[in-house]
């Protein structure tokens, strides 16, 4: 049987060498043509507006250097991404560990992680509006318990944006970390504790270092995805919590295509540079399989 599996060429007399090379190309051709014409070329032609208006030049990019609106927005976008990545890691790691280490509760945890995952970003951002609003659930609960006398301003603050984005991106952290934890031999942790290591030491010296590939993959995924957020900051943030995506949409509304294209190129380049810089990290290949859910 193994000999058969090793020599598939001999077993496929119906396929000549030529057709074996051409058939795969014919199979991918329709999608490749579709993606080039209806996705890559539209995006590329839009991006070109940043350098050919009114004539070929990099003036628009040079103008960005001294543009404080752009600079503040870029800093806010990156800063938000850092906080969201860190928050997702802190909240996601314990859940990932519980997902892997418990048997009975694992299916329940998985459902709780996956259902929000597949609920639309719009619906989840709306849910946080209900919770955080001036007359929202959290304010009502705090008022009726007498802890506060006036409603707190929770909605339309950076904090609301962080909470909403962490809620949306948490599964992208949990799933890669859980994947990495699942690959650790459980007898390692048992051996450590059997040899007298206290749980915290076992965790810090055995489990945590071995799960680093999953953490790196999850953090990269959450960071890159949070760079492009638009709906959640628009709904939960205040007037000053502008992300690059929001600024781009705003410029398109004003038909300021050259500037919007410039900003798009910066956003896209930031995401791609981070991915390329991290591609050698262990576990990154898996991250993008994960992102396909």
């Amino acid at each position, binding site marked *: 049987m193994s000999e058969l599996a090793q020599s598939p060429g001999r077993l*496929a007399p119906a396929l000549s060498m030529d057709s074996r090379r051409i058939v795969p190309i014919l199979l991918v051709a329709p999608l*490749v043509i579709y993606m080039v014409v209806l*996705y890559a070329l539209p995006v590329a032609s839009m991006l070109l507006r940043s350098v050919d208006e009114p004539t070929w030049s990099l003036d628009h990019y040079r103008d960005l250097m001294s543009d404080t609106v752009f600079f503040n927005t870029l800093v806010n976008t990156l800063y938000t991404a850092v906080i969201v990545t860190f928050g997702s890691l802190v909240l996601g790691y314990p859940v990932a560990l519980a997902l892997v280490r418990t048997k009975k509760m694992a299916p329940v945890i998985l459902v709780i992680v996956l259902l929000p995952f597949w609920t639309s970003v719009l619906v989840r951002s*709306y849910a946080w509006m209900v919770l955080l609003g001036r007359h929202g659930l959290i304010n009502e609960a705090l008022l009726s318990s007498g802890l506060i006398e006036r409603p707190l301003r929770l909605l339309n603050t950076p904090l609301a944006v962080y909470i909403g984005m962490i809620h949306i991106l948490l599964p992208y952290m949990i799933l890669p970390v859980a994947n990495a934890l699942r690959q650790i031999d459980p007898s390692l942790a048992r051996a450590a504790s059997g040899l007298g290591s206290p*749980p915290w030491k076992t*965790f810090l010296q055995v489990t945590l270092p071995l799960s680093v590939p999953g953490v790196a993959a999850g953090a990269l995924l959450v960071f890159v995805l949070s760079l492009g957020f638009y709906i959640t900051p628009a709904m939960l943030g205040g007037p000053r919590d502008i992300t690059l995506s929001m600024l781009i949409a705003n410029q398109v509304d004003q038909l300021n295509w050259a500037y919007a294209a410039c900003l798009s190129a910066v956003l896209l380049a930031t995401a791609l540079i981070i991915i390329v810089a991290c591609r050698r990290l262990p576990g990154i290949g898996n991250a993008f399989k994960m992102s396909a859910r």
Partner: protein
Amino acid sequence: MKAVRFFPSSLVGLILLFLAFPIVVVFAVSFSSANYLTFPPPALSLKWYRVYFSAENWLAPTWLSIWVAACTVVLSTFLGTLAALGIARLPRPLKILVSGLVLSPLIVPVIVVSIGVYYAFSKYGLVGKPIALVLAHTSLAVPFVVTSVTATLAGLDPRLEQAALSLGATPRGTFFQVTLPLIRPGVLVGALFAFITSFDELIVALFLSGQGAVTLPRRMWEDLRYAIDPTIAAVSTLTIVFTAVLLGIAHVLRKRAEQNRTMAS
């Protein structure tokens, strides 16, 4: 065999509550009798569901979303399944290039894709037409189909195809009678994910919907800008339940695919 615990389960419970609670609250608000957002609801009522099911300006966007998502499923599943079959057999450099292009919508920020297609499609007068949404949503949905089918293909025993061919089946017969039935669960899961991707999509719709092709997420977005009444909670609840049912189906299909695989080997 006691598992080594580090984080207390109460901490994990709190984080899970953080994940699940907002959705529970949306459910609860949708059954409220109050005209504004208040929690807990003063009394239970189905009136927001009645509002939704009797308002043409909610139902029309719902049907449009279902129609756009269905067309997206047909287009992306057809193109994506063929491509996944091809990608698996491509030589390595070409394989990386093609999968890079096909999977890139997962990484490229949606706003960049949205304004790109808006820029290109508006030249051809496509803005405000449902076909524009289908064409753009297909690009976004294709990665889910390709990854789902590729994963199923990777689990496929190549000896099954070889056996069919060596026993005299034509390549076409082998495909339709051996390969396709074996990858069907992966194709269907990909199709479901494509449906959800299109059905929930808002950012592309913000640019391409115009006045003529308002989808359900677009309609919800407009509602949230002007008046927040619990109708939107009822709509949200319905979409969550709808999505959960689709995911349930996807789960059953995956389980069945695993069974097929163990039976086949």
